[in-house]
């Protein structure tokens, strides 16, 4: 009566292994994809000697695999101004990743700070800050984008600012809800009974506890930000000329979809991979940290 029938235990073991393997795969594969894109983004433009301002009109709109007059092969073809699409995609990925990372950093810091203050102090401060968030949500971001493009000229920094302004609310909301969930936890009250100040409690006690869901949101938001940059490019208020981003390459290539499909489709696939990877990563992180977190 003591020995368990091993036969019936075996499937459960395999299942366990598989599910653990699943979580690992779902973390590792997207990480590998993102890392690969990042490495490509760093090195490929250098290796190709990619110059966003170089135009080779004789080589424009060449399909993937074309041999160029200088003997090189454009694996992904060339775009409407004859620049090598592969190198441009990688340079674009670099810009997109920079925009994504910087936006997440800025929006994340601002949003988390506001969210935590609102959640921690509550009362009128909470009401006001959250109404500011509502105002932000109700406000069409495109107006802001055009404004900044008009005031400061087109630029990567402006895109980052616009996207940060339109993304901080997500972080504020999640940080606030986390603080609300945590602030009455006993360990937070314990910190208070020890005589620790609000600063310590907010940043040393509450912040670390709130980070996991914020990280989950962050991974998912990275994809959203990169896509939003593409939309801004499409509307003509994205990155400036001479700075290819994935979004701008796709947007510029869209009018060639019926004649030179590769210009917007291939960077689209890369964007898809990037967004998909961050999305899957976010899901995996969520499953790992707290399966109860909703797709935020």
């Amino acid at each position, binding site marked *: 009566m003591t020995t368990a029938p091993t036969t019936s235990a075996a499937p459960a073991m395999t299942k366990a292994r598989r599910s653990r393997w699943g979580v690992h795969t779902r973390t590792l594969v997207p990480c590998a994809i993102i890392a690969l894109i990042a490495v490509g983004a760093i090195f490929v433009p250098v290796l190709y000697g990619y110059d966003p301002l170089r135009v080779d*009109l004789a080589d424009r709109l060449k399909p993937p695999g074309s041999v160029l007059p200088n003997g090189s092969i454009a694996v992904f073809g060339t775009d409407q101004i*004859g620049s090598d699409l592969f190198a441009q995609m990688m340079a674009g990925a670099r810009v997109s990743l920079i925009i994504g990372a910087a936006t997440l950093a800025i929006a994340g810091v601002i949003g988390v700070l506001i969210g935590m203050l609102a959640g921690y102090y509550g009362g009128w401060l909470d009401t006001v800050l959250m109404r500011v968030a509502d105002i932000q949500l109700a406000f069409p971001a495109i107006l802001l984008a055009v404004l900044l493009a008009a005031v400061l000229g087109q630029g990567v920094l402006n895109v980052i600012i616009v996207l940060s302004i339109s993304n901080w609310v997500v972080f504020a909301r999640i940080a606030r809800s986390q603080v609300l969930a945590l602030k009455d936890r006993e360990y937070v009250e314990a910190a208070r009974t020890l005589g620790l100040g609000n600063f310590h409690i907010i940043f040393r006690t509450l912040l670390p506890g709130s980070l996991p869901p914020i990280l989950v949101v962050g991974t998912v938001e990275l994809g959203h930000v990169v896509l939003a940059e593409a939309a801004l490019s499409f509307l003509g208020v994205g990155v400036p000329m001479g700075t290819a981003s994935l979004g701008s390459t796709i947007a*510029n290539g869209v*009018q060639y979809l019926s004649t030179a499909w590769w210009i917007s489709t291939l960077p689209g696939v890369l964007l898809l991979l990037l967004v998909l990877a961050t999305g899957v990563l976010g899901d995996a992180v969520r499953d790992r940290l707290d399966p109860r977190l909703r797709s935020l």
Partner: protein
Amino acid sequence: MNSIREKISLAVAATAVAMMALTGCGSGTASTGGGAMLPDEQQNLTFVPAFAVPGLDPTKAPLEMGSNQVLSNVLQALVKLDENSQPQPQLAESWEWTTPTTLTLKLREGVTFSDGQALSSADVKATLERYISQKQTLAAVLAVIESVSADDPTTVTITTTQPTGTLLGVLSMLFIGQAAHAQDDAWWAKPTGTGPFVINDFIANDKVSLTRNEGYWGEKAKLRSLTFKLITDVNAKVTALSNGQAQVLNDVPFDQVATVEAMSNVAFTQTEGLTYNFLWFNNAREPFTDVRVRTAMWEAVDLPTIVESLYGDTASVMDSFCPTSAFGCVAATDMPSYDPEHAKKLLAEAGYAEGFTADVIFSTANAGYDSLISALVSAWNEIGVTITPRALDGATWLSEFSALNWDMDVQPNQTATGDADYTLNRLYKCEAKRMGYCNPELDQLMAQAQESNDAQARLKLYQQVVDTMVKDAPAIPLFQTKPNVAASNTVQGLTIPPTEFIDWSTVYLTE
């Protein structure tokens, strides 16, 4: 807002606009022959224009290309200019300068508005006064008008402050509405006119639908209804033609021409136009104060290759400072050609052996400029000059442009009157202060050319003007474009004037 030339009307100065008006410089006629005319209830045509129609009040935006394309089929002016820029009767039957500053016009009898009301001199007076009071882009041109009086129902007298030979040209641009509504902005937002079509429905920047004016005083239009539907996305635009949603497209970009030409039952036509694109140096700013730098910049650019690659045969390289289709735009004797080595030498001589940095502004409202600017910037980079492109939205571009807050500017332009004077004298004389360029010698040549009535003498003078300008290189004329339409084979009677203001009253559909 994405069409190339929408902003022309804003950019183009008003002062001299109406001195003369449109001249015919060859016009394209699309489609010939065809089957039997469709029955009247099927005479419905959709046209995809190149320009957005932001509003329909001509007194508020008298130079808006898109609006005028529609309004020229709905409203009419006192006179219209023929192919030779000569005024011909339209609403006015005859006219006479009774004194050097008094013009008396006799209105045509029997002209009615589409609502049945007869045209009277009161309508003309009230409309002209409305134009003047609006202080819009024509304000400077209209400033010479001292008063307008309606002497009797068919007689209008215009008094000017000084002798003004170009007044009839100005009048050809003013559409006449109804006196009763002269103060009524809402009425003008959807005006009733004396033309062959009536505005049925209007959604700004999207769609205007016209129906035939059944009570038209002249020959009635053949189309029962005509819809201007703006489609900005190139794919959607070409698709609309391919699946029969639209019958005529205007302004097919070069990269889509092959697609359009490959479509069965579609005819693609292009014609000589009056639109061209130029690059201006800010001649008052370092380092462009130096003619060697300006020339070097010009010589660095392989224009034939750029134009051929980006625009194919929808555009052509220029050999003058205005489109050759306009009178007086003679070919320069010695146009700078692509010579990067020489350009570098010139830069070195000017003290910029190491190159320099500067910016170039352009409006994002001009679709397809990205490739052009990239090509230019790339070419300059080859001679060691680093240029930062500044793509600005239309409104920002205009304010930067007006403030001369740029090193270089690229924009389209139209020699609206079809005469070199309109472009050259207006833009490049010292007084114009458009780009910090001033050459008194040139001013004198241009003044002479303006005063002269002898065509041959003028051509000779313009030869000198152009050659002087080539030497000074205050600007680079980049290329001139050819207006084009792609039309279904069922469309008949379509003619494209150089101005692209198509007269739709002659168009009809066949099987």
